[in-house]
C-alpha cells in the first residue's frame, strides 16, 4: 500500500511536467501579444548556421516561453505575486526599466569604462529583433503591432559620444492612485540634433509654413513632487528646444494648453499616450498658432471604447491599474473623409478609415488612424485647397483627425517607417504647411533627427545598407 502511494507521488510529479508539455503542444499559438505590443516568437526555421551559433535553440526557448498555455493569465498572476512583496510608500510604486538600468552617464566623461553586461546586451538585441519584424513584413497590420520604440540599430549602437547615447522610450514608471506616469529623463543637450534638422528643413522649404509642436508626455503634470522634486523637466527641455529652433518655425504652445486642463482626462491612466481630449486641446493650440478657428467639442460625435489596459499596465502589471482601466474616447470629426495608406510611394494606396472602431482591448489606442503607417493621405470634404504634411509619432494619431476639418488634404508621415523623399511629396502635392508633432521623448531622441534628415534625401542610410530587400516590397 505504502509503495503504491510512493509510486503515485513520483508519477504525479513527472505527470505534471508531462502534462505541461502536452498542453503546450496542443494549445493554440498566437502571432501577436496585444499587451506587450510585439510579435511573439514563432517556431524557427531550421538552418544549420543558426544551430551552430545557438540562435536556433535560443529561438525555441523563446518560442516556448512566448506561447506557453494561458500565458496572459499566468502573467497576471505574476503581477499579483510581485505586488505581494511589500507595500509601496505613500501609495507610490516605482517600476524601473531593468533592461536599461545601466544607462550611460549623460556627461559620459569616461564612456569606455561603463560596463554593459552580457544579459543586457542580449535583451536589447532581442527587443531589437522583435521590433524589426513588423517593419519588414509589410502585411502585418501595423495597428496590431505599433510600438514607439526607435529602430533597432539605435538600441544596439552604444557609442561613446554623449549626444549619441541611446535613449529609451519607456523609462521608469511611477504608479500612484491608479495612474501610471512615466519619468522623463531628457535634458536640453539631447534636443540639439533635432533643432539642427529643423534648420535644414527651414532652409530646404522657404516657401512652406513650418510648425513644431512639442507634446508633453505628462511627467510634469502628474509625477508626485516627491519624485520630481518640483523640477518641471519637460518644460525645461521643451522651452529650450523652442528657443533654439531657427527663426521662422512657428512653435505650438501645446504644453501650456494641456497644463491648463491637466485636471481633465487628457492622459490615459494605464497607457503612455494622451487621450483624444488631450489631443483636442493641442489642436486648439495649433489652431491659434495657425490662425484658424477651432471647432468646439460639441461639434464632434463622441464615441467610446471601454476597458482599455494600455502599455504602462502591461509594463508594470500593477493590479491597481488593472482595477482602474481606461476608456478610449473618440471625437469623430464632422466632415466626410477618404483615407488611404501607403507602404511605398504615393501609388497603390489602400483604402482605410479615419477611425478603426473595431479596435479593442490592449490595442484600443489603434482606433486612431488604425495604427502607424509609413504614409497616409486624408482627403476631406473641406474643399479649401489647403494641404498639410504632419510628421508624427504615435501621439500624432489622436491629433491628426481634427485637422481634416480645416485642410482639404492631410498627409501623415510616421517618422519611424517613412522611407520616401519628402521633397517629392511637397512638390508633387503642392502642400503649404508642414507640422512636426513630437512627444518629448521622441524629440530628445537622436534617432528622430537621423530619420528626419534622411527624408530630405531619400532612403534612410541604415535601411539601404542592411535591408534592401525589405525596401523593394
Amino acid at each position, binding site marked *: 500500500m505504502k509503495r503504491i502511494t510512493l509510486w503515485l507521488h513520483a508519477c504525479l*510529479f513527472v505527470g505534471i511536467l508531462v502534462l505541461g508539455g502536452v498542453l*503546450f503542444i496542443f494549445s493554440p499559438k498566437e502571432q501577436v501579444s496585444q499587451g506587450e505590443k510585439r510579435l511573439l516568437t514563432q517556431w524557427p526555421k531550421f538552418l544549420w548556421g543558426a544551430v551552430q551559433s545557438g540562435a536556433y535553440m535560443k529561438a525555441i*526557448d523563446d518560442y516556448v*516561453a512566448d506561447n506557453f498555455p494561458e500565458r496572459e493569465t499566468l502573467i497576471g498572476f505574476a503581477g499579483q505575486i510581485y505586488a505581494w512583496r511589500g507595500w*509601496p510608500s505613500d501609495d507610490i510604486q516605482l517600476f*524601473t526599466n*531593468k533592461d536599461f538600468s545601466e544607462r550611460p552617464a549623460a556627461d559620459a566623461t569616461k564612456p569606455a569604462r561603463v560596463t554593459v553586461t552580457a544579459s543586457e546586451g542580449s*535583451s536589447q538585441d532581442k527587443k531589437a529583433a522583435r521590433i524589426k519584424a513588423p517593419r519588414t513584413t509589410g502585411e502585418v497590420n501595423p495597428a496590431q503591432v505599433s510600438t514607439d520604440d526607435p529602430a533597432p540599430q539605435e538600441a544596439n549602437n552604444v557609442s561613446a559620444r554623449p549626444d549619441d547615447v541611446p535613449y529609451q522610450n519607456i523609462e521608469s514608471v511611477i504608479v500612484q492612485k491608479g495612474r501610471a506616469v512615466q519619468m522623463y529623463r531628457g535634458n536640453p543637450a539631447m534636443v540639439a540634433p533635432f533643432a539642427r534638422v529643423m534648420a535644414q528643413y527651414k532652409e530646404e522649404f522657404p516657401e512652406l509654413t513650418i510648425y513644431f509642436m512639442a507634446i508633453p508626455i505628462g511627467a510634469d503634470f502628474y509625477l508626485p513632487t516627491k519624485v520630481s522634486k518640483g523640477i518641471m523637466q519637460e518644460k525645461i527641455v521643451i522651452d529650450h528646444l523652442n528657443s533654439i529652433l531657427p527663426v521662422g518655425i512657428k512653435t505650438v504652445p501645446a504644453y501650456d494648453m494641456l497644463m491648463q486642463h491637466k485636471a481633465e482626462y487628457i492622459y490615459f491612466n494605464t497607457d503612455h499616450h494622451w487621450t483624444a481630449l488631450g489631443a483636442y486641446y493641442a489642436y486648439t493650440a495649433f489652431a491659434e498658432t495657425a490662425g484658424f478657428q477651432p471647432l468646439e467639442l460639441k461639434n464632434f460625435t463622441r464615441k467610446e471604447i471601454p476597458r482599455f489596459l494600455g502599455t504602462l499596465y502591461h509594463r508594470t502589471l500593477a493590479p491597481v491599474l488593472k482595477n482602474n482601466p481606461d476608456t478610449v474616447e473618440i471625437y469623430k470629426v464632422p466632415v466626410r473623409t477618404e483615407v488611404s495608406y501607403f507602404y511605398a510611394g504615393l501609388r497603390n494606396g489602400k483604402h482605410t478609415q479615419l477611425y478603426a472602431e473595431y479596435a479593442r482591448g490592449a490595442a484600443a489606442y489603434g482606433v486612431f488612424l488604425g495604427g502607424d503607417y509609413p504614409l497616409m493621405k486624408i482627403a476631406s470634404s473641406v474643399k479649401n485647397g489647403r494641404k498639410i504634411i504632419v510628421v508624427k509619432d504615435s501621439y500624432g494619431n489622436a491629433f491628426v483627425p481634427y485637422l481634416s476639418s480645416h485642410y482639404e488634404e492631410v498627409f501623415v508621415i510616421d517618422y519611424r517607417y517613412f522611407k520616401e523623399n519628402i521633397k517629392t511629396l511637397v512638390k508633387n502635392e503642392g502642400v503649404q504647411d508642414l507640422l512636426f508633432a513630437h512627444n518629448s521623448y521622441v524629440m530628445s531622441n537622436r534617432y528622430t533627427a537621423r530619420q528626419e534628415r534622411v527624408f530630405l534625401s531619400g532612403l534612410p542610410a541604415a535601411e539601404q545598407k542592411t535591408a534592401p530587400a525589405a525596401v523593394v516590397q
Partner: protein
Amino acid sequence: MVFSSLTFLFFFLPASIACYYAFPQRWVRNLILTFFSLLFYAWGEPIWVLLLIFSVVVDFFIGLFIEHFRERKAIARIGLVISLMFNLGLLISLKYFDFLVEITNALTGLTFEKPGILLPVGISFYTFQSISYIVDVYRGEVSAQKRLINYMLFVSCFHQLVAGPIVRYSHVAREIEQRVFNLQEFIDGSARFCKGLFKKVLIANIAGELAQQFLGRNLAEATLTGQWFGLLMYSLQIYFDFSGYSDMAIGLGWMFGFRYQENFRHPYIAQSITDFWRRWHISLGTLFRDYVYIPLGGNRQYQTRNIFIVWALTGLWHGASWNFVLWGLYFGTILWLEKLFILRWLGAVPAFAAHVYTLSLIVVGWAIFYFTDLYRLAQSFEVLFRIARVPVYDFEVVTAFSSNVLWLAFACVACTPVYTGLHARLEQHLRKGIYNMCLLGQSLAFLSISVILLVGKTYNPFIYFRF
C-alpha cells in the same frame, strides 16, 4: 540550457526521466543520461560541446595510461603532466587569454589585440573535475574508469555540468557502475529540485533586478543607502542563485540515483570568515584544499605563502579580471589574520558581534566581486564609505525597500537554517505518508510559483555560468 527555463522543465526533464527509466539495464541508462547531457550542453554551446567531448576522450585515455604504468612512477607522471598541461592549457587559452594579453600590454607597452574568445559555459567546472580525476588516479586513490561512456557521464552529466557542485570521481565512481533506484530518494530529489528552482526564481531573480537597479546605475546618481541596499540585494542574489542551482543539481542527482556532495551549509550564518568558507561553495573549497593547499605544504610548511597562493587562484577561478584576484586576496588576507589572532578574539565576543563582523566583511567582499571594472569599484567604495558626498537616501531606495519588505524578510529567514530545522522536525514527528504529502504540496506550490514567474520572463540568466 538552463534549469529555470520552460523548455527544460516541460520537455527536457520529463523526456530524460521517461527515456532513462524505460530501460532497466544500467549501461543503457548511462548511455541515455550521457546523450541527454550532451544535448543539454549543446543546446547552449553547440560548438564547444565538441571541445567537451575531445577533452573527455583525452583525459579518459590518460587515465588508462597512468593506470597501466602505475608501477613505473616516472612514466605515470608523464601522463599526469600532459593532462595538467592539457586541461590548464584549455582553461588558460579560453578563459584567461584576453586577461593575459591585457597584462602583457600593460607591462610592456605593446598593443597586442585581444582574441576575444567567448568562454565556453561550465569549462571551469569540468576541467577541474577532470584534473581531480587524473590526480586521484595518479595518487592511486581511485582506479581508472575502463569505459569511455561511463567517464563521459561523470564529466558531462547535465545535473552539475555547467555550475557545479564540482563532483569528485571518487564520490560517484561506485554509483556510475552500480547505483540502485530508490523511490523515496526520487521523491526527495524532486522536492529538492523544486526548492532550488523556487530559490532561483523567487529570490535570486528578484534580488538580481534590485541589485542591478542600484549597483548597475550611473554611480554619480547613487545614494549611500541605495548603494548598500544594492549590495545587500547582490549578496542575496548570488547566494540564492548559486545555492538554488546546487539544490537543483543535487535533487536531480537523487532522482537519477547519484549522491552529490552538499555545496552550501547556510553560509550567511557563519561566525567568522573561516567558518564562512567551510559553508560556501564547499566543493570548490575542498578541491583547492586537497589539490593545491595541502600539496604546497598546507599548515606545516610556508602556511602564509600557501594561503595567499590558494586565495589568489580561488579569486582567479571566478573570473579573468583583476577584481576577482583582489577578491580572492581580500579573503586570503582575512583568513590569514583570523588564523593569527582574530579567531581568538571572536571566541571571546558575543555571537551577535561575530555575526556582524562576518556578514559585513562578506557583503563588502561582494562589492569587489560585482564590479569587474576597478574604476567603478573605486567609485562605489567612495559612495559606500561616504568618501564621496552623496545624498543619504532618495525616493527610489525608500520605495524599493517598502515595496519589497515582506519578500526581503522572507529571503533573510531563508538564509538561516529555520526551514531545514522545520523539515527535520516534521519528518521526525509526522507519519511518513503524511510527510510525503506535505512534501508533494510544497513541491507543487514551489513549482507553480516558479512557472508563473518564469512565463514571459526573459530576464533569467544564471550568474554563475561564466565563472
